[in-house]
């Protein structure tokens, strides 16, 4: 089945999708006719504007002020009588980075766009969609099918970061259970930047050296550093199909889900072409003079200086559960992920099986103060010294919320703390609802931790922002 497609095969893949589309229309011949008679349209959307202000001028490359505007139009056409609906969401973005050389960037995206058929026993949706799996909030244990946009790291919540992609979703509704099948024919990676922006993993490292007072040989070496995509993954080949299966049901008072996923790791890991590539990785992770000189001294070739964005295929078996106990909500997720990508302590690429367990507890007090605490444990099986991961790592997430004056003001505080690496993030937010559809928020992010930790990489990116959002 897994045949690398030639141009002809690619046409076959497209043909398959069109065939499914035509087949569905053929199955519901009344759909077209009813569409002309009684469709119901619902439109909604939002427009928002954020103004960011960095709290400290740390380097000449950093953008101190940043203005971002987004508009989203959500359109739904529903043909009630035949159970058919069509949903098309569009998003337009405009971004202004205010600094000496002001950059402007604007774009229009097609977000979700799919049609869906709902029948008593099943539903089928085909097109660009997102997937929300799992039970925990803001953490990724089982919710792995949709890639995410990390262009601005975690300044947006997980659901807003998700990137829609072409997929087929099929749900079968049995007596007391639901069986869900998701097929993603084309691979799409999460949007993670490595160099050249404030929110990239290695920040402006290459620009520093290019513009710094370094010998030409050093500048030449650094100038040839390249990150290359795996073209096979981006090709529309049947080899790149990803599948997710989920069964949802209930035992006693516990709602649970059983999962199987066969997919590519959507966040890339840098894989070396040669062993010299590992010296390169040492330098970009620990950008010291010594590591730079060690790299230059090797006289690396272009091949040595090219790192590949690796997205290994992985299989995930998992379970989630949710129940209530007295006045507390309890949620849990467990995922066994096979062949996850890691770097050994010599920076060579390797893969390890990983077990991740997450438990969450939430409660609302009579004064309507809400708290949600989640604990995540990550265990790497067959452990050998890795960079920067420990055999067992632990993370705590906290989400607090309090409404004042009947929802007029909402204060939320999100906190993430990696106990093992001692890096953390704090995100307070105060929202004033001027009208139900119109709100104003003041928020900020504080990141702390070591230079190679998740949050610590962005410790110079503490910021405050003002957001105006209008929903319609």
């Amino acid at each position, binding site marked *: 089945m897994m045949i690398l497609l030639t141009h002809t095969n690619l046409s076959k893949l497209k043909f398959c999708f069109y065939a499914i589309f035509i087949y569905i229309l053929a199955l519901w011949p009344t759909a077209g006719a009813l569409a002309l008679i009684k469709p119901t349209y619902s439109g909604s959307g939002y427009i928002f504007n954020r103004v960011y202000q960095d709290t400290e001028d740390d380097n000449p490359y950093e953008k101190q002020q940043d203005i971002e505007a987004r508009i989203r139009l959500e359109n739904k056409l529903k043909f009630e009588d035949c159970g058919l609906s069509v949903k098309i969401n569009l998003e337009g973005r405009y971004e202004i980075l205010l600094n000496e050389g002001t950059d402007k960037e604007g774009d229009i995206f097609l977000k979700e766009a799919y049609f869906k058929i709902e029948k008593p026993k099943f539903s089928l949706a085909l097109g660009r969609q997102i997937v929300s799996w799992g039970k925990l909030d803001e953490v990724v244990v089982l919710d792995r099918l949709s890639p995410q946009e990390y262009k601005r790291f975690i300044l947006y919540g997980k659901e807003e970061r998700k990137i829609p992609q072409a997929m087929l979703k099929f749900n079968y509704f049995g007596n007391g259970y639901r069986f869900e099948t998701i097929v993603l024919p084309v691979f799409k990676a999460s949007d993670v930047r490595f160099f050249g922006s404030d929110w990239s993993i290695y920040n402006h490292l290459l620009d520093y050296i290019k513009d710094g007072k370094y010998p030409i040989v050093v500048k030449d070496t650094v100038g040839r550093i390249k990150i290359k995509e795996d073209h096979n993954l981006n090709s529309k080949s049947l080899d790149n199909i990803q599948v997710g299966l989920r069964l949802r049901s209930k035992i006693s008072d516990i709602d649970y889900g059983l999962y199987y996923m066969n997919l590519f790791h959507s966040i890339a890991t840098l894989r070396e072409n040669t062993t010299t590539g590992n010296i390169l990785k040492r330098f970009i992770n620990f950008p010291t003079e010594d590591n730079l000189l060690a790299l230059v001294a090797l006289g690396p070739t272009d091949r040595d200086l090219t790192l590949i964005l690796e997205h290994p295929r992985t299989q995930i078996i998992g379970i989630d559960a949710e129940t*209530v106990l007295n006045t507390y909500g309890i949620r849990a997720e467990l995922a066994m992920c096979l062949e996850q990508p890691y770097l050994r302590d010599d920076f060579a690429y390797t893969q390890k099986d990983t077990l991740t367990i997450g438990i969450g507890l939430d409660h609302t007090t009579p004064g*309507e103060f809400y708290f949600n605490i989640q604990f995540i444990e990550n265990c790497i099986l067959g452990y050998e010294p890795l960079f920067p991961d420990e055999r067992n790592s632990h993370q705590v997430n906290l989400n607090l919320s309090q409404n004042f004056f009947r929802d007029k003001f909402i204060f939320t505080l999100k906190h993430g703390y990696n106990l093992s690496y001692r890096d953390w993030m704090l995100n307070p937010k105060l929202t004033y609802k001027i009208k139900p559809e119109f709100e104003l928020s003041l928020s900020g992010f504080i990141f702390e931790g070591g230079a190679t930790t998740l949050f610590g990489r962005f410790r110079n990116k503490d910021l405050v922002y003002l957001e105006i959002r209008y929903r319609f």
Partner: protein
Amino acid sequence: MLRCYRYYLLLLMLLSPISVFSQDLNALRIMEEAFRRDDGRDAYFKIEMTLIDNTGNERKRLLEVYTKDYADLMKTFIRFLEPADIKDTSFLSLEYNEDEDIQYLYLPALGRVRRIVSSQKNLRFMNTDFTYEDMQRRRPEKDEHRVICEEIFDGRQCYVVESLPKDKSQYSKRVSWIDKESRMILKIDFYNKSGQKSKVFRVVDLDKRQNIWTALKVVMEDLEDKHSTRMQVVEVKYNQGINDDTFNPYKLE
């Protein structure tokens, strides 16, 4: 025959010490009749909800409510249609006779269904003046009832019944005005745990739809917060044979 029965009850009420017991029986019967009155096998309501704060500012919401009675279970599905900030938020409640209720909430921003704590009934439902407890029909056997008097409320002859909770409740007492003709509860005074009257529920407009008495406009007033929630029925349909799928938690997403 019915009149004879009432005289018989009146006689019993006059006979202390069993009068209280008899009165309770009568009150329980009234409350059961109110609880079990014909409100259709299933019902669909489109409701305009208005939240009014202490300065008179109004916030409007539009929602759909589907209810269906089963032998030992009542199912309610609520979906918000407007405004945009809560559009498509859905709530499913499965109220069992014996077991603890099960409630699910679908929040579009979260993209998935969440099981919510049903035992915390004292929390406000979507920031209205109705708590989760108020949203449910309270079974008469959960309270001890007593007829206080009979009086005319809003031009209608009513029994006034005091109900003290036997089962857990956020209130220390309820006093209900039950219309003799329709067996509808036209008014409820809610008393908080310290014995103070804290909220008042009133039916402002009552009429028959498909031959079923229907509260077309109701108001819940929070006396402490000086805030009220008005609900106006825009559309109502009874006995339409609502599909069981409407209440399927697996179809909430």
